[in-house]
């Protein structure tokens, strides 16, 4: 992939994003941790006191956290990657660059947030007395599949957004719909049996289930989940790459 030939460019773009993101804000990078914690607080109050969601031996807050951290990576990475081409208009129209580094840099930069949040989540596990399992060693595998899926989606959305800015307007609605269709707030078992085949078509469902398996339950993810998310991620990535390649040729003309 050309991205790795341009690792210096990629590195500088990630650095730019991280350094500039919270400049002139009082709490700075603390926001990366604060936002998920506020989300977690609100959701766990609503779903463990007002509407009770049963999660067995695992405290609901912990169950939610293990799904919310990977989900927030999905949504923040997609939002920022979608606008990554349009936000670099001045560069795209002036310098011949490998344009595929822009969405990739946006996602890599959110990967750093994801890792920070992961560490916070582990400290919550200690607090809630949930032991840290050896299956956590499978994290890199699941994360790579997750990353490839998001990169593929980002290639599709960021390139179409150059032509139709409607994409960046609709993305918020699309993501919240997607979140409710993914078992982030609830266990997949509460979905009616006859709807499960459709529900399981969502590759994020397989990924969130796998994350919970290795983080909370100490079991290896089912091979169906792994295989399905792997195949789906690479198909999306392949299609995304083709669309991006096709559309990126005319970015400077239409942007």
């Amino acid at each position, binding site marked *: 992939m050309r991205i790795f030939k341009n690792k210096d460019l990629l590195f*500088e773009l990630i650095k730019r994003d991280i350094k500039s993101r919270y*400049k002139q804000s009082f709490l700075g990078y603390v926001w990366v941790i604060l936002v998920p914690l506020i989300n977690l607080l609100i959701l766990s109050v609503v779903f463990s006191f007002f509407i009770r969601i049963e999660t067995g031996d695992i405290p609901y807050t912990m169950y939610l956290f293990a799904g919310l951290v990977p989900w927030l990576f999905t949504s923040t990475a997609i939002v920022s990657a979608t606008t990554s081409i349009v936000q670099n208009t*001045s560069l795209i129209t002036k*310098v011949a660059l490998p344009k595929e580094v822009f969405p990739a840099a946006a996602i890599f930069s959110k990967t750093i947030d994801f890792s920070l949040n992961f560490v916070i989540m582990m400290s919550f596990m200690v607090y809630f007395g949930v032991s840290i399992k050896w299956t956590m060693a499978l994290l890199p595998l699941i994360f790579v599949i997750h990353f490839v899926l998001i990169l593929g989606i980002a290639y599709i959305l960021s390139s179409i957004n150059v032509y*139709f800015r409607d994409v960046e307007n609709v993305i918020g609605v699309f993501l919240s719909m997607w979140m409710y269709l993914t078992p982030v707030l609830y266990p997949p078992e509460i979905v009616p049996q006859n709807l499960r085949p459709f529900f399981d078509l969502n590759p994020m469902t397989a990924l969130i289930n796998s994350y919970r398996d290795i983080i909370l339950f100490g079991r290896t993810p089912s091979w169906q989940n792994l295989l399905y998310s792997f195949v789906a991620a690479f198909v999306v990535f392949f299609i995304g790459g083709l669309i991006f390649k096709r559309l990126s040729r005319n970015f400077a003309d239409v942007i």
Partner: protein
Amino acid sequence: MDSDKPVVIFNGVGKRFKKERKLLLKEALVDIFKPGKSEYFWALKEISFSLKRGDTLGIIGKNGTGKSTILKLIAGVMFPDEGKVTVHGNIAPLIELGAGFHFELSGRENIYLNGVILGLTRSEIDKRFGSIVKFAELEDFIDTPIKHYSSGMYMRLGFSIAVHTDPDILLVDEILAVGDEAFQRKCFKKIREIQTMDKTVVFVSHSTDLIREYCNKVMLVENGEIALLGDPSKVIAAYKR
């Protein structure tokens, strides 16, 4: 490398744009139901020329005649709809200085950012860093966020980074208008130096004095076509008429 071999070749190049840009899905959908309504205009038509090493080409013409589009085609940012553009060697675009700057970051951080954007590796920038700062005369401000720079200061920084990329082809689009006279003189001295190293320079400028002084070829563009190409004094005389 054979010095007579052209480094930039335009062969019957045409570039068209859509007359109206459809930014909203709604408008694009309307278009689907009204087929044949997409209208194009040709920004460039039948452009053919070639440049050798050591050539300095000045492009003149009224606003909106396609001068900048020619630079963008050389830079590889845009692609022709007709004909063929061939470019040998690496290009440093000086189009609107500071395109890759981030205002919240310091001068130092921006040198690295801009350097990799123009195709240098980080270790190459490490080696040239001192020289870039010295040429830009920003030793005292290099760790200041560039949002506090004056327009002359970041013009200096942008110019310095671009010429330090050691380009085979330097593209200059109306940039030397800002900045004080002393620095302008320094920039032109640097451009002279680049010329003597047998590099190729392409200028877009309204200043016929500059063009006369620095170019060995001048192209007059009118309505997307080459009206005249050749000896500076002849072309400039025709332009002024």
